[in-house]
């Protein structure tokens, strides 16, 4: 896209997260960064760090030694490392693995009730939530998701297909828990949040169970959602 915009008279600069890709595409100007995928400007909540990153990329616009300039940002963002002693802001019991759809819905509903206060604190602290892709309130999610376990294909008003509705309901579950985990104290690493969610919550286990059902579905779009959009690869049971 940088190349095509530059061809159309627009000076561009790129923050590049994957060095092999930027070396292949050779945009006019780019800064290769050591940040994790999903955090292209480096460190959430650290304006000074973000400004350093942006200035490094934007100042390339003044350079005259093109047509391909590639620099490297040298510093790791502090939040990529596990925070010693971090505990999630939510205390929940060891998760169970229910045996049927109704039990899964009940277990998720009960766990979400425990998570809710922390989520409320997150929203008060940060002034926003990223929950909303399903366009449904949280109390809808347990029964909606559980019905897929029974072979149903329910839909939601905003989305074209049941599979897409499931995908974005799952995204909302992950967002709610991710926010709740960060409600208090200093930021954990993404790894710490993931380990907690996928290994120690009913919600994580529920999505893993939904993945299996989606992969086995005769519905082609459900198979795609199950394979690609529900569970990160490192948390798929072997």
């Amino acid at each position, binding site marked *: *896209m940088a*190349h*095509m*915009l*530059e*061809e*159309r*008279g*627009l*000076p*561009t*600069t790129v*923050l*590049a*997260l*994957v*060095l*092999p*890709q930027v070396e292949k595409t*050779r*945009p*006019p100007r780019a800064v*290769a960064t*050591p940040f*994790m*995928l*999903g*955090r*292209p*400007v*480096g*460190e*959430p*909540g650290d*304006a000074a760090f*973000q400004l350093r990153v*942006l*200035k490094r*990329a*934007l100042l390339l*616009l003044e350079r*005259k030694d*093109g*047509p391909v300039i590639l620099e490297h940002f040298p510093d790791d963002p502090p*939040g*990529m490392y596990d925070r010693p002693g971090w505990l999630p802001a939510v205390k929940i019991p060891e998760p169970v693995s229910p045996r049927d759809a109704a039990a899964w819905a009940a277990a998720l509903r009960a766990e979400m009730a425990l998570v809710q206060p922390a989520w409320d604190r997150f929203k008060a602290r*940060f002034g926003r*939530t990223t929950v*909303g*892709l399903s366009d449904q309130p949280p109390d809808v999610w347990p029964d909606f998701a559980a019905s897929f376990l029974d072979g149903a294909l329910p839909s939601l008003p*905003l989305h074209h297909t049941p599979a897409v509705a499931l995908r974005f309901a799952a*995204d909302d579950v992950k967002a709610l828990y*991710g*926010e709740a985990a*960060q409600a208090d104290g200093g*930021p954990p690493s993404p790894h710490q949040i993931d380990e907690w969610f996928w290994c120690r919550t009913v919600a994580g286990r529920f999505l893993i169970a939904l993945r299996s059902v989606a992969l086995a579905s005769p519905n082609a779009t459900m198979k795609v959602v199950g394979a690609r*959009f529900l569970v*990160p*690869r*490192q948390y798929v049971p072997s």
Partner: protein
Amino acid sequence: MARLEDIPEATRIAAAELPCPSFDTTPFVAGPKLAKRRVAIISSAGLLRRGARPFVKPLHDGEGECRAVPSTWNARDILLSHASVNFDRTGFQRDMNVVFPIDRLRDLAAAGEIGSVAETHFTFIPVADPTPAGIADEMAAALHSDRVDGVILVPI
């Protein structure tokens, strides 16, 4: 680079070996000092306003879409619908600017380090192929109309 050694193997291989477009030309457009430039952000995070339908199709062979992100949107209303489940979302949960650094551009403008912030930015979800020419034409026309002379691309 994103530390490939820290990325799970399957994602690492996919990221490093993703087929990427190549081009016969190397355009390079000059401009004024940064302090005079009007800057826009282009994000591959599939940003949307709360209540809108999330992105589903990436830009590819005429399908998919690129949407405008007005500077006037409130941070509370901006959601992210990037496709990959293997990318971190917790940073965006905590601070939108780690993906869409609009407040940082405002800081730079207030400090006189850039000229101004564009009225409209753009977002899409990515694909390996080159951007469809029609999308690039429309985006370029809108950016020129807004007098933008500096674009920062922020792939997620």
